[in-house]
């Protein structure tokens, strides 16, 4: 289940860095992981420019690999600068998340979802 709210805006880069920190991946793989995590259905027109931007910033590094079928795939891996950015943005995110949690509070036990 994917949230319908536009919450991802501003956090897409962080999500991409985090997923690539786990393992290198290609565009479509990343979009499926985002969807599977229930975070967002990111349109290709948003995802691919974001990846190119990270590449241009030197945070990720592409390499090409053959796929079982179809065209070769452009895989991305985190660079050292990417790991640093991930650590910094991850800390920002946790501060932000804790702040929101404090404002929204915790759901009452047993409340309907």
């Amino acid at each position, binding site marked *: 289940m994917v949230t319908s709210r536009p919450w991802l805006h501003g956090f897409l880069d962080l999500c991409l860095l985090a997923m690539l920190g786990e393992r290198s991946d290609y565009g479509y793989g990343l979009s499926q992981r985002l969807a599977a995590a229930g975070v967002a259905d990111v349109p290709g027109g948003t995802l*691919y*420019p974001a990846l190119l*931007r990270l590449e241009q910033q030197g945070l990720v590094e592409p390499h090409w690999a053959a796929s079982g079928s179809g065209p070769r795939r*452009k895989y991305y891996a985190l660079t050292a600068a990417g790991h640093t950015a991930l650590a910094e943005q991850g800390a920002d995110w946790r501060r932000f998340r804790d702040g929101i949690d404090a404002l929204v509070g915790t759901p009452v036990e047993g409340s309907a979802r």
Partner: protein
Amino acid sequence: MSPDPDDDGWPARFEAELVRLGQHPARARALAQESVDQAVEAGSDADRLLGPPHLYARHLVSELNDVPAPPGVGGPPAPGRVLLRLADVGKRYRRRVVLAGVDLTVRAGEVAAVVGANGCGKSTLLRICAGLTRPTSGTVERTRRVGLVPQDGGTAPWLTAAEHFTLFGAAAGLAPRRARSTGEHLAARLSWRPAAGQPAQDLSGGTRQKLNLVLGELHSPDLLLLDEPYQGFDQGTYLDFWRQVVAWRDAGRGVVVVTHLLHDLRHVDQVLDLGSRPGARVAAVAR
């Protein structure tokens, strides 16, 4: 059956729009190929996955242009090697002093504007930069590959745009086909598609200036010298022109542009003000 002009496909239209927006043709080609691959891997077509080609091109370019370049990675290079250096240059015609004590250094990745009142020697200075006029005093060093776009044009009235491309290309050692396709690429960046068979004398003043601009850049010069190249341009073309200047700079070329429009100056790195009298002052402006 003639081919439908709208049917040249998503990648071609995407690539053309990227080029028009100032991306390097090779980069545009690579991005188009990448987008096609992305559509295939997503089991979709490019239009469904990424949207209409011209809109996606603009979105992509604005995303990439917003990036503050980290040191040493991508982005416009820091000003580099010296492409042009004038030291204490002066020019006299008999008793009349046209220029005196002009210093100007232009490096790769820089745009310099030359401003001043009519008759202050702007065009003479540009000709000195190009090596067409010898200064009376001072020294000039310049890179080998220089492109000059003169104000009054150097086009032949009875030749078509394609013939100009071929002719000027031949002077730079380009094969005719390559010269023509390069010329058409460059024209497209100025939103101009030369009509076959139309001689230059039948072009509007603005379009003839576009032809001049394309001819000045046809041989990929490292240093471009432009003498008010936008006379007769409409607003849209004028913006295309400045986008192009910025793209040249970001591609590591040097540009000297003679201008009298002061609002142009936000695009430039340095201003050489020739004033109304001989004797030059250089002012640096923030980018």
